[in-house]
């Protein structure tokens, strides 16, 4: 079992904050309090970055998208309505949509010029390659479940799904990965799109 990062522990604590404290934080964010926004950024920057990296599988692009997510959060905090979910779920949703936009844009560029895929040479690169074989929703669940090491219930809360839906997505994602990786290992082709 992999070690849980320090940020993951902080994220879990943030998710489990009492409602009153979360409400006070939200009010401070709506007042555009610099300290509140700085704390929010420090608590969630790696979470957003890894979620974005799991989707786009490009570090530079993930860094850009992470910055866009927090700027968009500043602009949209007045429209944010608390529905019993942690604010991390809102940030992850923004990150997911921005990542999908970036993937579409990159797909159009790849249609014009097809670059040669580079073979994965490290464990993180292979993991990112494996994530590239999944759908967007499966990537989201796999990232929160196995990278951030959240429970099924926490993943369900962060993604706005039911625990059963999270389990189903996780099961199908692992089956898909097993089938594809087995096929790739059999053919000896280790390069992925």
């Amino acid at each position, binding site marked *: 079992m992999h070690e849980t990062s320090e940020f993951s522990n902080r994220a879990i604590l943030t998710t489990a904050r009492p409602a009153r404290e979360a409400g006070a934080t939200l009010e401070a964010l709506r007042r*555009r309090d610099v300290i509140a*926004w700085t704390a929010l950024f420090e608590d969630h920057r*790696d979470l957003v970055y890894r979620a974005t990296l799991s989707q786009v599988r490009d570090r530079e692009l993930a860094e850009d998208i992470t910055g866009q997510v927090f700027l968009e959060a500043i602009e949209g905090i007045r429209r944010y309505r608390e529905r019993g979910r942690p604010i991390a779920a809102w940030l992850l949703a923004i990150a997911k949509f921005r990542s999908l936009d970036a993937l579409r844009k990159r797909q159009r560029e790849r249609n014009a010029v097809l670059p040669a895929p580079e073979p994965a040479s490290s464990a*993180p690169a*292979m993991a990112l390659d*494996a994530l590239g074989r999944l759908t967007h929703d499966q990537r989201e669940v796999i990232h929160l479940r196995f990278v951030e090491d959240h429970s099924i219930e926490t993943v369900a809360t962060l993604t706005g799904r039911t625990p059963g839906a999270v389990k189903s997505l996780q099961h199908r994602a692992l089956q898909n990965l*097993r089938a594809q*990786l087995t096929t*790739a290992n059999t053919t000896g082709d280790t390069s992925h799109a």
Partner: protein
Amino acid sequence: MHNPLRSTFDDSNDPVEEAAEYFGPLSGESLPEATATTIRSGMLAALRNSARPAPAARFTFAGAAIVAPLLAVGVVGAAAGESPISGTLDAIESAASTLGIGGDSGETRQDLEVRNEAAEDFGQPGSQPGNTANAPGLVQGAVSAETPEATPEATPEAAPADAPVAAAPEDAPSDEATDPHANGKGCDDVLFGQGEPPFASPGGPVGCEVGNSADHRKNGAKNDDGETDDEEDTGDDDGATGDDPADEAEDEDDKPGGTARGLGNGHDEDRPGNGQANGHDKHDHDPNPNGNGPDKGDGGDDSGDATSEGEEDSGGPGKSAEKKPDNPGGGKKN
């Protein structure tokens, strides 16, 4: 321990644990500090820029700055004995003239006065105050004493609105030129003679306060009772009109088949096309109690016969629809 570089799963292990080992190295990925610093500065800049006052507040302040001086000018004008509105308008005019974007509202007021004068001079005979269909823009209060001169036909009947219809011919002079209803044919004949179109307005000829076309056509209807009409004319005119060729001509016109007969089919038959105006059923009154028309309501001995006959036989106007085929002219049936 699962080797991520194998790029495959071991079926003998738990897939969840294998996936955790496979994707675990990604948990070490973190946002570079340089990038974090850049994002932080960008966030601070965004927070500072968004700290400006809201546009709504600025517009509110600007609106108050414009309205407050105008209100102050109006209050001062009111204190000086002028109308607050006029003071405000003067201030607006002066301000607009200063800016070069406004006209003189006095021109607008003059145009309004000219329009009112034009409405008063509306030359249509019988134009009634408040009849906007005949004189658009002409209001009741704008009509001056010149109106009777412009509508000589309507002035004799310029009685109170609730005056009985049948009493109008008796109260009015017997001169046909001044009282269209006293000529035995109704005012529409007089108006037609002056070139007015028939049914110029709903309810009767333009300019007659009787207001109901049935009354106009019934008041002069002799129907088929020529003697009654003659006697009535004689009584009204002291027998002088009996030798008048004009009266003879009128008598000819009043015979059945004329205008009066064709339009006197009974008031209860307020159907379109019979010349009746709608309304007698609604007014809850019988304009022709004697069965001969409004101008014979109180007149003479003949009215008694007409009334009794009309009521008993239900042959009079407005009494029975079954009798109409036998008595198309209404009134007396001979």
